[in-house]
């Protein structure tokens, strides 16, 4: 695969806040195309806030988020909406629309933004659902699914428009080890088979080491990122005691 010269996502001098409370400051990192990038850190350190800024749900206090060199937060509303259509997001809870069936959840983005006919959309929905191992579940409502199935259905919806980037917010949270592993395998499969660029917010060590090939560590005390690189490399070479403590579950 040819790697582009410029990074796919570039974050420059990003400051995050909630009103007067500063969550993170001076974040600088890049994500390359086809990479699985992990945003890691302890609970409440600001990982999900950073994700909200990356996916266009929350405006940063300062700084830039560039997609293919284009500043998302400097763009006008219409351009932002267009750029957001290139994102697939799997929320922590799956966030399936509860009044729609699984099939309708996956079909909605296609109905909104594609020019496909009803039968073509139906076929695509089946394809996306089988991609995440949920074939035959199109007519079920989210309330009828288990937690793991709901996340996989959420992933099928996130993949509906063949996004350039897929964001995962705590994909393993609340899942048993087997379902979590299944989701990790799906992430790896997406990267290897479809060449997707993936950004994962997580603090699950198993997921970090299984899927990540680049990462940043957010430290809630210094309120900035204190490490970046391949998680396995960080485990062996980082000199930051917090990073080591985090990556070894406090055993070192």
């Amino acid at each position, binding site marked *: 695969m040819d790697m582009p010269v410029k990074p796919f996502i570039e974050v420059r001098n990003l400051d995050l806040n909630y009103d007067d409370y500063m969550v993170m400051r001076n974040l600088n990192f890049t994500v390359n195309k086809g990479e699985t990038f992990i945003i890691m850190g302890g609970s409440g350190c600001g990982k999900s806030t950073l994700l909200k800024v990356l996916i266009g*749900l929350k405006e940063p206090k300062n700084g830039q988020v560039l997609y293919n060199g284009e500043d998302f937060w400097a763009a006008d509303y219409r351009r932002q909406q267009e750029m*957001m259509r290139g994102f697939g*997001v799997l929320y*922590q*809870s799956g*966030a399936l629309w*509860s009044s729609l069936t699984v099939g309708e959840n996956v079909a*909605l983005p296609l109905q*909104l933004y594609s020019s496909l006919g009803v039968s073509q959309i139906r076929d695509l929905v089946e394809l996306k659902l089988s991609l995440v191992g949920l074939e035959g579940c199109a007519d079920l409502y989210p309330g009828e699914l288990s937690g793991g199935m709901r996340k996989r259905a959420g992933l099928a919806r996130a993949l509906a428009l063949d996004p350039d980037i897929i964001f995962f917010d705590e994909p393993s949270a609340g899942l048993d080890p087997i379902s979590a592993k299944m989701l990790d395998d799906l992430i790896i499969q997406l990267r290897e088979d479809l060449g997707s660029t993936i950004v994962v917010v997580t603090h699950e060590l198993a997921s970090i080491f299984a899927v990540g090939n680049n990462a940043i560590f957010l430290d809630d005390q210094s309120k900035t990122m204190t490490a970046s690189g391949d998680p396995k490399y960080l485990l062996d070479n980082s000199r930051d005691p917090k990073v080591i403590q985090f990556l070894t579950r406090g055993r070192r």
Partner: protein
Amino acid sequence: MSLEKLTFNYSQGDNALSVRFNGVWQIFTKIPPVSEATSQFLAYPDIKTIILDTTELSAWDSSLVVFLYKLIKQCQERNIEVRYNNPPEGMEKIIALTLTRTDIKVLPKVDVTDTFLEKVGEGFIGMGKGLFILLDFLGEIVQAFGRLIIGKAYFRKDEFMLLLQRCGVSALGLVSLISLLVGVILAFVGAMQLKLFGAQIYIADIVGIAMVRVMGAVMTGILMSGRTGASFAAELGIMQTNEEIDAFKTLGVDPVEFLVVPRILALVIMMPLLTLYANLMGILGGFAISVSMLNLNPVEYINHTQAAVKMSNLWVGLAHSVVFGIIIAISGCLRGIRCERSASGVGEATTSAVVTAITSIVIATAVITFICQVLGV
């Protein structure tokens, strides 16, 4: 009882106080206060050592740990050496662990009681913010309706039909019961005064005009605030909590267009129909009481009602219902969509939606009544 649990023996030779713990020291039994032990410090001011003797202790739990923690703290402050005699397994470790947890500090309570002026000021600021949020939301609704009119909005007919059913047919039972009873009450109250003049037949006028002009719409509005408005707030609040609304935004779909517009439309369509039905039920209630209990002639009652209720009354009533439909839908949707992401947030949103809707309905009724008075309608 406390003497049985705690006994003291002071040895003057080595200035040592032996504190013996007897029997069961568990949270479901009565535990003596630590002052019972510390009072010995006053009785024997030259204590240098305290021996915690647990030989006779038969069972213990965290209640003993708390007691010992407080006692040992006091000993440390007075430079009294603490020794254990036959401590049960694990107790020393737990106490040592408790004593080393000095890094946890409880912050002093800050007095946050506001003065009257501060409360008034905060109230005004809150109202200003609320007004800004409402105007912002109204702007979004107008834009979304604009897109709907020019055919650029995403509109799910199936879901809209379900909403119509939820806002209409499903509410018929409740509307029937309450409107019928309102008609009954109006007839009884009217009869009390009109009987004095032998003018009971005018009950038909009172019930007819009151129900058609305002009461039908107001009662339906209040019912729908508690029923449908609360349901909208809870539904959208839970969607906010479950990140479903975020999912719409990241897809580039305006949640107002997708969720709010159909709800407003459904209520605006169903409220006048429900009000017409409520009017009919109210008149029926008044009719039933007048004929059965007040011995009025049924034909005369119907004729009087027909003569009294003008079309203008009906239009005023229907205007009320349309305004109430908009108020209920906007209150419910606004509170739901701006709901905090917690169970209590959903509860607050629901309560706030109902209170806002009912208050606004009463204010709107007063305003419409005043306008009609000025216009002579």
